């Protein structure tokens, strides 16, 4: 029982990781309607930027903020320069560009920073909180930051006119222009925010799994699954989905063994999606023709 409880906690810790990256996916999805397969690699690259800054002596929190800002502008620039030319192309072409971007970021990171793993500083104490053996301070801190980003994002999309405009631009660009929204900038802004959120995610993930160019490969898959499980258009859903994913994976692993744990976890998710086609907390879209 203790072991199972321990697995649940470990699952929540990994779930926090998936949730934070899932939020970046939701951000881009809500702003552009796309699932950005390169999101993980962007987050990885941001984390290397932070690592470089810390390495040359910049204090942690300064590097943290600087990385977020740099990532914001870099991601917005990627949208303006690389994605814009295929804005009107078929969705598969866009997917192909995402895959290209993923390969480029991965390969360039490996070239600049080599493939050896690097430890990444955690801003949280190294001693576990309250002397427990289940969760480390960093894991708890990462979950807290993911929740903070979630609330900020929720408020942004629900309450601010800019957030509303962004959702509108994603759903119906033509109509959005007709109410005066500069759709091009909304897309860039969406990418920028996603880049910034990804950077936060990366900096919270790297201390746990170490920094290397391939660090996001698996995490991206789980974040994607978690986001869809919870509802890709709803930040709350995506975060809960991320946590569920983490717990599910660990508990399945503990109960049936590791050999097929990934398979079983994915099958379970697909069953859920069959029963709830919009994800557990996604918005049901009814449209009349």
């Amino acid at each position, binding site marked *: 029982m203790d072991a199972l409880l321990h697995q649940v906690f470990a699952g929540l810790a990994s779930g926090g*990781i998936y949730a934070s990256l899932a939020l970046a996916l939701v951000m881009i999805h809500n702003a552009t309607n796309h699932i950005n397969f390169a999101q993980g690699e962007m987050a990885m690259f941001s984390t290397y930027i932070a690592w470089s800054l810390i390495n040359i002596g910049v204090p942690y929190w300064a590097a943290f903020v600087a990385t977020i800002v740099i990532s914001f502008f870099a991601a917005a620039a990627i949208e303006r320069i690389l994605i814009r030319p295929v804005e009107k192309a078929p969705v598969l072409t866009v997917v192909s560009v995402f895959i290209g971007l993923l390969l480029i970021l991965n390969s360039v990171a490996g070239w600049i920073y*080599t493939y050896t793993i690097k430890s990444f500083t955690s801003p949280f104490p190294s001693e576990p909180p309250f002397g427990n*053996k289940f969760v480390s301070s960093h894991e708890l801190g990462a979950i807290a930051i993911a929740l903070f980003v979630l609330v900020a994002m929720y408020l942004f999309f629900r309450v601010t006119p800019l957030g509303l405009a962004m959702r509108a631009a994603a759903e119906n660009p033509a109509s959005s222009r007709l109410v005066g929204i500069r759709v091009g900038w909304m897309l860039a802004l969406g990418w920028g925010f996603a880049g910034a959120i990804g950077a936060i995610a990366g900096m919270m993930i790297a201390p746990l*799994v170490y920094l290397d160019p*391939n660090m996001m490969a*698996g995490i991206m898959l789980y974040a994607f699954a978690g986001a869809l499980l919870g509802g890709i258009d709803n930040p709350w859903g995506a975060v809960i989905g991320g946590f569920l994913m983490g717990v599910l994976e660990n508990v399945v692993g503990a109960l049936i063994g590791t050999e097929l744990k990934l398979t079983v976890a994915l099958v379970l998710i697909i069953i859920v999606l069959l029963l709830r086609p919009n994800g557990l907390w996604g918005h049901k879209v009814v449209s009349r023709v």
Partner: protein
Amino acid sequence: MNLHHLKRAIMALFALLALTPSAHAEKKYDPGASDTEIKIGQTMPYSGPASSYGTIGKAEAAYFKMINELGGVNGRKINLISLDDGYTPPKAVEQVRRLVEQDQVLFLWQNLGTPTNSAFHKYVNSKKIPHLFLATGATKWGDPKNFPWTMGGQPTYQAEATIYAKHLLKTKPDAKIAVLYQNDDYGKDYVKGLKDGLKDKAQSMIVAEQGYETAEPSVDSQVIKLQSSGADTFFIFAIPKFAAQTIRKTYDIGWKPVVYVNNVSSAVANVLQPAGLEKSVGLLTAQYFKDSHDPQWANSTDVKQYLDFMKKHHPDGDPKDSNNAYGFMQANLLVHVLKACGDNLTRENILKQATSLKNLELPMLLPGIKINTSADDYFIIEQLQMARFDGKEWRLFGELLDY
């Protein structure tokens, strides 16, 4: 020793070799060899999931470039054609066929990966192309009867695990063992070696086994599961990233078993520092080459040579990455073999020289390790030494263990 000295030393070696009788023997060539060039083929994962190993090929190319600048081997330049196989068997087959049929290389060398080499294992043997010193530790590369043209290039994973088993049986015969392994040929070879080494006690001693996939973000769940098995001895058969995670997690959850970590994942800079040196105290492993960033070797000549080489000739590579040291050592070994071939650069002679190495000592190998091969012994390195981590460096102990 700086580069200047290194160059001088190598030139002196060449001068010596020029005097050996083989240099005057009649020149004999197979495709890929000529008066001016020796063409060697190789496949490496420069892209794809195993791209972290690509640096081996780059280090080796850099080494040969250095050798060529110094005049080459017996006056011939080494032309290493190293192609990307993305770590996928179909691509590996294609690239090897290109190397053999189009580029007409003299032989293949240091092709990386078990699945990739398996895919063209039969092909190169039917074509009688030497397929030397593969960068994989599978046991099947030492099968002279069925595959006389194929030779492995490092201690086999199974043999290494067998050594751990023997050590454990001697020191803790009543151990309760937990095993974490990578769920592929690499991890499973270790598990097999461990079980072979434990013999009939394997069943009773191993109380828990957990595999992981490289696509998984973390192995925390596996470690927790293994802890709950009540094991007091823990074998980690993983790649560096997961080994570091495991060592850290084991410590953090307050589990204190005797921990064996496989050689690939024992580098101080790459694994133990990220895991936390204080969390690594007491780890056991078996070594055969020097960890370039282990303080105890800081003053040894070959390590300095290596670091110097990295700085001057392979500046893009990370000197802490043991893959580079590995490439350095392998390139060194090949140069020895080629020198020994003299002017008889036939495929047959290459194989013959590769299989008649006697008491060869190489830079970066642990003191005392000698390379011996013969027509029925295709394993180049068959000695390992146990080591325990004391928080700063690996302390070797006991004898060199043969297998």
